């Protein structure tokens, strides 16, 4: 009889320890919660959005502080920010796959290689790249159907539209120095499809630094600013067609345009609206 009781007490104690452990481990929010199954760490805000869109959001165990969409992404354990994620935190999560962005995260990629952690490289330069990456990641997380329908949805909404004449567009990412988008950017492609023509599409770079003189020379009809700032008071810019006709757009959502994810659809619609106006 006594023997049985002691045995029971042992169970009680271990149960109590387990309960206390779970309470503590849940209270200590910074500690990643242990999840069964496939574990993904995404250092790419765009890929985070894609993963949620293909309904693999539950498999994500770590994201960056930049991953602000959808709402659920904000609650996932943070492994650092976009350009400076913590490798230690990533390793601590024991992920099955880590999604890295190139070229910004070259350093992380090399460290992961050394540690033997599987990674997926995201570095889209065109819309096709984006679709291909969605399909690839869909296969990896076994959500092929979700990926297919996401690609379908994006292809349906982002497509060439009929325009008599393409309007020239200048997109400014930063004012000091002037940074715009070149040919090697999905944004360049989206502009073309929306009926615009990037004035710097002849530059074979993704984000070239250019001079004021070149902008004035190329005389864009539409200017899109992706930074807070004013350009109408700039010396010698007043005669640019876009400024003369008051076609300067500043209030676009950067995440809809610069983030190669599902919300490009919204961004594309905004571009279309601007160009059609």
């Amino acid at each position, binding site marked *: 009889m006594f023997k049985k009781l002691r045995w029971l007490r042992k169970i009680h104690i271990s149960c109590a320890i387990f309960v206390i452990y779970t309470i503590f481990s849940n209270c200590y929010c910074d500690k990643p919660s242990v999840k069964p199954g496939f574990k993904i760490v995404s250092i790419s805000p765009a890929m985070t959005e894609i993963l949620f869109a293909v309904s693999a959001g539950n498999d994500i165990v770590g994201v960056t502080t930049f991953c602000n969409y959808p709402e659920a992404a904000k609650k996932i354990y943070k492994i650092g920010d976009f350009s400076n994620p913590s490798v230690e935190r990533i390793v601590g999560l024991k992920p099955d796959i880590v999604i890295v962005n190139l070229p910004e995260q070259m350093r992380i990629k090399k460290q992961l290689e050394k540690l033997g952690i599987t990674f997926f490289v995201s570095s889209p330069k065109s819309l096709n790249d984006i679709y291909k990456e969605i399909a690839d990641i869909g296969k990896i997380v076994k959500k092929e159907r979700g990926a297919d329908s996401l690609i379908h949805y994006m292809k349906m909404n982002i497509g060439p539209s009929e325009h008599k004449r393409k309007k020239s567009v200048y997109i400014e990412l930063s004012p*000091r*120095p002037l940074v715009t988008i070149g040919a090697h950017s999905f944004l360049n492609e989206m502009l073309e499809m929306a009926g615009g023509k990037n004035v710097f599409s002849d530059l074979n770079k993704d984000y070239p630094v250019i001079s004021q003189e070149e902008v004035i020379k190329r005389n864009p009809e539409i200017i899109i600013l992706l930074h807070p*700032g004013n350009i109408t008071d*700039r010396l010698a810019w007043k005669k640019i067609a876009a400024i003369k006709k008051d076609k300067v757009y500043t209030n676009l959502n950067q995440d809809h345009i610069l983030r190669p994810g599902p919300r490009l659809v919204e961004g594309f619609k905004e571009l279309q609206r601007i160009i059609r106006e």
Partner: protein
Amino acid sequence: MNKFVPVILIFLLAIFVSIMVGPAQLTSEIIQLRLSRVILGIFAGGILAFCGGVLQGLFGNPLVEPYTLGSASGAALGGSIGILLFGTISPLFAFFGSLGVGFFVFTVARIEGGLLRDRLILAGVVMSFLCSSLVMIIMVMGGRELYEILYLLMGYLGIIINAENRLFIILMIVLSAVLMLFLYRYHRELDIISQGLETAAGLGIDIQKFSVIIFLITSLLIGLTVSLVGAIGFVGLVIPHISKLLFGPKHLYNLPASFILGATFLLLADTVSRIITVYELPVGVVTSLIGVPFFIYLYRK
């Protein structure tokens, strides 16, 4: 000094070339743009070379340059903090960063009743290191803005002139003209100080007062310049040497020559940077690229 005639001719030629040469067709807007760029170039190049000459004279050290006293890294730090807080570089932040570091260097080097010249250099160098690492932290933390700090560190003349910094540019031009004239008053003191502090003191120069004046005014000038066009390198270090090679050790002649040569050199470097590529290249890269071989050639001759 008849040597000034060819130098001024080359200077005028450089102005002409910078206005005429460029990718775009000459329209009134483009001329306006290039003219503003030329004015920036003249003052930035001139101020850097002039201050370099004054500081090399004061410290009796040919390796001193305008940035030795920490103004450039201070401006970079101020600019980076501006980026961190507001997303863009404001010249105001860079300017106050530069002045802040200058002031800090000054307090470190201050002793009872004056200033220690050697400690000034040391404090400046140490502060530069501190600022650089702080800038690095900000650079690593920020993403895309990396460009902006890089351009602030290397310097470029193609800045956008708008309502915000127009005041700064006018202030720089007016103030720098006045301040440089004020510094030029001390050309004789700088001649004498090259023979050591005791000689200078024996001839009636108040070394402490003199050092403080030179330090404060050059810091102000360099702070203004860096906050506008960034820390353009090479000009402030090497142009004073070239000026001394051509015009001799007398500061009466080699300081104005430094100004003209610095302005000419920067204008030519900027013209090169504009025509070799459609991209905007930091002019600091070009100054070193074409300046170093030229300097080696001149020195070996």
